[in-house]
């Protein structure tokens, strides 16, 4: 933790809410693809089922093991990208990554995901928040190569 960062910036109410009550947690019956990733150092794991049709994310579910930040980040991701064109969700992932790494207010509107911004003040936890976004990007690269 950078001195001066407070716990409230990390554990925003919306994060704790997603952690306690994750959205889209589980598996999908007929995913177009299933993608996994892990942080070997801390043991976080996440698996994402994606249904992609005509360049659009039609459905998402995630499951995995990890801390509140990685779980909440996955849940917020799942809630947010359903129905999004793949290209837009790629842009969103890039914006979230920049926000997590810099702590700056994102140029693009990221909505609720702004709640993750406080993680930037806890550098060692940034990879927890990033994990599901990395997995998403990897999945999209396979299922819906950038147009």
């Amino acid at each position, binding site marked *: 933790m950078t001195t001066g960062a407070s716990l409230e910036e990390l554990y925003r109410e919306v994060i704790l809410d997603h952690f306690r009550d994750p959205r889209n947690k589980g598996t999908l019956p007929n995913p177009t693809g299933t993608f996994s990733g892990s942080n070997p150092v801390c043991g*976080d794991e996440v698996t994402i089922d994606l249904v992609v049709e005509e360049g659009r994310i039609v459905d998402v579910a995630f499951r995995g093991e990890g*801390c*509140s930040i990685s779980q909440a980040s996955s849940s917020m991701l799942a809630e947010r990208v359903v129905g999004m064109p793949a290209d837009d969700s790629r842009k969103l992932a890039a914006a979230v990554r920049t926000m997590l790494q810099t702590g700056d207010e994102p140029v693009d509107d990221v909505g609720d995901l702004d709640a993750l911004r406080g993680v930037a003040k806890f550098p060692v936890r940034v990879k927890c928040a990033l994990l599901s976004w990395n997995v998403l990007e990897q999945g999209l690269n396979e299922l819906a190569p950038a147009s």
Partner: protein
Amino acid sequence: MSTPTIRGQAINAAAVRRDFPVLSQTVNGRPLVYLDNAATSQTPRQVIDALVRYYETDNANVHRGIHALSMRASDQYERSRARLALFIGERKAEHVVFTRNATEAINLVAHAWGDRHVGAGDEILLTEMEHHSNIVPWQLLAQRKGARLVYAHIGSDGQLDLDEMRELIGPRTKLVAITHASNVLGTINPVAEIAGMARRVGAPVLLDAAQSAPHLAVDIEALGCDFLALSAHKMLGPTGVGALWAREERLAEMDPFLGGGGMIDRVDEQMSTWAPVPDRYEAGTPSIADAIAFEPAIEYLEQLGMDNVRQHEIELNALAIDRLHSMPGVTIHGPQSPEARAGVVSFALAGVHPHDIATILDTEGVAVRAGHHCAQLVMRRLGVPATTRASFYVYNTAHEIEALVEGLGKVRRVFG
């Protein structure tokens, strides 16, 4: 905060703390409470001074120099080796090889002894509670040689089952490699009994003493092991130096491992002959300063007395176990008795991931470790992805355990 009491006769931790400059800092505005000793211990002034003294007055390459600085450096380097040998009950200093750390010591045995003595179909017996550093070198050896790893299980009490051990040690067992104390569960293993079983089938025993040499009296004769690995940085010494001790008969049946300056007798174009031990296993310029500064660390522990160190940690264990048990939702992993474990307490808090616990404790200045602790097999046995671990040493106090417990109260409030 009510003042907790422990008998505190074994070690005067308040006095000890004055020797550790790092402990007087604040972290996030709170006094640092360092409970991550199983990862690395803190460094007393005496060790820091020895490093400074070395670089300010004696810095020179060892062994090969005739000039004054080189002689002084060589003498101190060898004196440290002799001191370490005595610390573990060995009178012949040359049976101690300096390595970077316990991990390298174990890899050295896997190559220098293992490659010669382990073959296809042979078994190496480990336990599920090994640190990765006492697993992976044997996996790589087994892969090179077509051997197989066999694991003794951890019982629900966090202990090995000696009956199972007796069954697992058989004619195919070529080596038994076990930890003296678990870095997750704290469990102290009955090494002498296991070594007795191994002796009956002629299998040497490698003891991973990374978590025991810092915390309890270690005597190679009483333990009956053949190889012993340890790290200075876990026992008040500097990073960058560890050691392998090996029994004379075993040293005689080992091949060279790392090649280079200092480990040879005569070098010809296609082949060379080797220097006697310990030089044979110390290729290249060693961690001279670190090895020299290891001596005052050993001296510090000797002056405290290893029995007192042990007693102090039992007292801290007892207090920690008692206080943690009083919190709702806490599960303590491993043996429940304070005497059955080294100064290590891993626990779970229902509904909160260890990383969240560690982050919140850090905001309170309390340093614990959260993760798999390089012991994924233990995590799988416990059925958890990670644990939170508090580990104690000579400078830790009852007040610090209260700080840990208070910090956990805050965790509860955040996740309540």
